[in-house]
Structures are given as C-alpha cells and as structure tokens.
C-alpha cells in the first residue's frame, strides 16, 4: 500500500502550494534553506519555510541570543535578517535547485511593510508561498503585537490577500488571549492556512549577574517543553477553522508529529530539534509514512483530527 502524504495549501487558488509530505521546516530555524543544502537531500522535505524577512536589513538583538532551558531553548534573535532585496538577489536564485517548495516568512513593523515584501515576493518565481510572521515575541514594533489582536491580524492578512496570489499562511502567537479568535479572523480575511504556535514568551534570569540572561531581556521558548501547549492550541484552532492548520512546537519524532495531526493539523513544522540532528525533518517525514503503513493508514485524511471527540474512524 502506498501512503498518501501530500498536502495542498490554497487548494482552488491560482497558485496552490502542494507538498509531497506534510513536514516543513519552521521559520527561524532553517535559515534560507541553502544553509542545509550541503547536509540534506531537501527533495525529501515537504517545504522549507525561510527565516523571517523584513523590508530592510535588521541587525537584530544583542548577544546572548539564546539560552538552553529544560527540554527547550529560549531565543531572541530579534528578526536579524538581510532584508528582502538581498534575499531575492542572493538566496532566491538558489531555491529552485533545492527541489523543495520555499515559503518566504515575512515580518514587518507596519501593514505597509508587509505589503511591500509581499509585492516584491510576488515577482519571484522561486517563492511558493508566504508565511506571515505576526507572532514574533522579540521585537518592539509589529510581531506579536499584530498577532495578538484579531482585528489587526485580520487587517494585515486582508491587505496581503489583496496584493498577492501566493498561498498565505498566517503564523499565530500562543501569547494571544484567544488564539482561536485570531485564527478565525485571519481565515475570514483570506488566509489559506494558519500555523501555530510561534514561541512562547519567556525569561531566564542570570542569577549571578542579577539580570536577564538574553541580551534582549525576554525571549521566545521553543522545543519539547512547549509541545503540549502547542498541541492543545492546534486542537482548539482546528475545530473552528476550515483552512489547513500547520502545527509546530517541539516536534522531534514522528510520534510528536502524529499528536499534532491527530489534533487536527494538516501539516507540521520541525524547528529547533534540527539543531542537534539536521535530518530530523526528513526522518519525521519518512517515519510518518512508515507509521501509516504499519497501521494500515492510506491517507493522512484518515487520521487528521481523529483524536477529536466524535471523530469517525477512531480505533
């Protein structure tokens, strides 16, 4: 039996994003994809989501930028990136050789900045989709300030919908009062998918120094430590939206990915787990197909959301 693991985001739109499997990289943990091209066969990856990119280059946060935490990592990179111009000049020409769809993660301090990047990305053939980062906890302007408010998140999504035919994935912050409300708002405004969760706001104190450890002060927590929170939020969101939900937060093994899928995710993203083992993203994808074969599951549709109450086909 051959397992059907392909996933499409933006089905029925002019430029649907079809992935050969549901395992993507998470923004901010995979650079611009080319950094791993020498290490991995990226044709075995569902899609690459790039580092979040802004209109102008950003120097980002001061050092230290990360600190290991119990079963996780707290980071504050501060959206350090070379800016959309350099990304399109230096990275985009290399993306077609990666043999995986590339989704450009975009960030900004204003709606106008998001719109400008989306317009410029529209011209780049190598870009297969956009992920709107309205959820970064480590910047003083924009970021999670947009993503915490359903009205603002919808406003940005709508503005982008008006200027791009690319599939739009809106990345949600777990730091909102109601993530489900934000998800519904961005779906109504034209999002083709939502991804969740971005990092959870956190703080580590350097006790000897008597100050925050990170140069930025606070940071965003990722890794297995946040997985149950992320699975719960995917569960909540998947029940109230009809667009695909992309789950992420602490995925290191196929069992982790399956939790998100059974909670309602159509696809998943692998993030900081790839730091220790870069091939985690491929291993999860291939182990997923193996798991499906072992369990007589022909299609992801059979198990997507199957943990929800009332789901037919539960074993």
């Amino acid at each position: 039996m051959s397992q059907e693991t392909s996933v499409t985001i933006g089905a029925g739109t002019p430029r649907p994003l079809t992935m050969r499997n549901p395992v993507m990289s998470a923004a901010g943990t995979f650079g611009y994809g080319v950094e791993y091209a020498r290490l991995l066969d990226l044709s075995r990856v569902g899609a690459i989501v790039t580092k979040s990119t802004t209109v102008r280059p950003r120097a980002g946060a001061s050092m230290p930028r990360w600190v290991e935490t119990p079963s996780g990592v707290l980071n504050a990179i501060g959206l350090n990136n070379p800016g959309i111009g350099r990304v399109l000049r230096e990275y985009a020409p290399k993306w077609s050789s990666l043999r995986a769809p590339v989704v450009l993660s975009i960030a900004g301090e204003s709606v106008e900045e998001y719109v400008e990047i989306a317009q410029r990305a529209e011209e780049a053939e190598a870009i297969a989709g956009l992920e709107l980062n309205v959820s970064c906890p480590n910047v003083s302007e924009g970021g999670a300030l947009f993503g915490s408010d359903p009205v603002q998140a919808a406003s940005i999504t709508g503005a982008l919908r008006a200027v791009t035919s690319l599939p739009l994935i809106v990345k949600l912050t777990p730091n909102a009062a109601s993530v489900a409300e934000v998800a519904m708002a961005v779906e109504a405004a034209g999002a083709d998918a939502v991804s969740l969760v971005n990092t959870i706001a956190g703080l580590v104190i350097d006790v000897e120094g008597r100050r925050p450890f990170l140069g930025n002060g606070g940071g965003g927590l990722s890794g297995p430590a946040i997985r149950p929170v992320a699975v719960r939020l995917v569960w909540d969101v998947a029940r109230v939206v009809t667009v695909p939900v992309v789950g992420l937060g602490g995925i290191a093994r196929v069992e982790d990915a399956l939790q998100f899928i059974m909670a309602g995710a159509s696809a998943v993203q692998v993030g900081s787990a790839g730091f220790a083992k870069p091939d985690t993203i491929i291993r999860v994808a291939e182990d997923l197909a193996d798991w499906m074969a072992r369990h007589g599951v022909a299609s992801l549709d059979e198990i997507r959301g199957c943990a929800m109450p009332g789901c037919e086909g539960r074993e």
Partner: protein
Amino acid sequence: MGAAETATVVQSAALQPGLFGLRLEADARLVQACEPGRYLMLSVGDGNEPYLPRPYWVRRVSAVWLNLLVGVGGAGSGWLATRRPGDPVEFFGPLGTTLIPPPRTRRLLLSGDLPGLNCLLALADRALARDIEVALVFHGAVDTSARLIPPDVELLTELNASALTWADALYAIGDPSVVHTAKAALRTAGSRIPAFGVPHVPLACGVGACYGCLVETRRGPKLSCVNGPAFGLADLS
C-alpha cells in the same frame, strides 16, 4: 552528512579535576576532514535533556581517532564525561573553516584557555608538522605539565612583548576575554604580526541558520559559524 554520524568511545579518562579526555573512533573520511578549527556538533543526553548539541573542536590523532578534551562544567560536558569505551556518541560535521598558519610563518605563537584547548592543540600539531616552531601561552587552571601539550611546544607564562617579538604570527583561541587580552597585548607591544582571534562562541545550529552566534567586528556583526571561527584580531570589537 546531515544524518547523524556515530563515533565510538575507545578511551576515556579523567585527566585532572574538571578535565576529561575522550578518544573517539569514527569513519576515516570524517576524521580526515577534522582539520584544525573545524568542529563537530555532538548530541548529548537523550535528545530532550540537554536539548541542544554541543560544538567541540577536535584533534585528529590518527586516521580514525579524534581526541577531545572536555572541561566538565555543565550538563553536556557532564554527560560526555560519563561515556565509557564502547559507548556511541552521535554527531554531525565537521563544520567550519580550517585554521592554517599564515604563509611563511616560522614561529607561531598560540594563546588560549580551556575552551580553546582542542583547537590550540590541533593547530599546534599542524604547525609542528610543517616545521614551524610553536609556543603556547595557556590561561587557566589546567595543569599543562601533565602531558597534555606536545613536548615540542614551548610553554610560556605570559603573552608579553618578548613573546610577540619572537613570533611571526599569533592565534588567540578561547573565551572572548582571552582573545581580547591578546588584542590588548598586541597593541601594547606595537606588534604588527598577522594575528587572529578565535573566540569560543556557543553555537546552536552550527551552520548559519539560527543567527545565534554573533561576533562583533569593526566590519559589522558576523556569524562565528559562517564567517569564523578566526577573525583578524584587529577587526574584533
């Protein structure tokens, strides 16, 4: 190379209080690629705890053996110190740029501390193999008399004008404070020899993806894993 490689511990020993030595056996192709300055990203623990890999410079000692000196201080090094012969250690790499003595170097001065020790020794090996004289100023509590340092390496007690006058090239490798001490010494002595700083910067991904290993230079911020590990000493801010 993205798939985890596995080395096997063939020897482990507590060398001094707080210092542990491992000898790892690995695929000859990978060992051959472990040039001075290149590092391995070692998986430590069970994958959850500790969560992140640990970058280690290594010293190639045979076609299939690598030596690794580990200063025991945290959870990762503590886990490594519990490895025994026959235990596997997963890693990926080697990554990073090879360090080489500048052309026409005849007398290489090294300055560093425990975080830089594996790299210092690997670079010393490379220099000695090219008939370059090597002197080392070691900062820290490690007992350098205990056969850790090759006998052909002259141990100096201070990075001063005399040492800098003797040398025709300098590498300062280790904690950023050691690198900046070397920069200050160079300036005080008015020395113009080729001088490089290799600050030991914690790495999360090791490949330039996470932007977490910033080094401030006069030419702007640089990533240690991509643009380093060596920087012109004068360029370091």
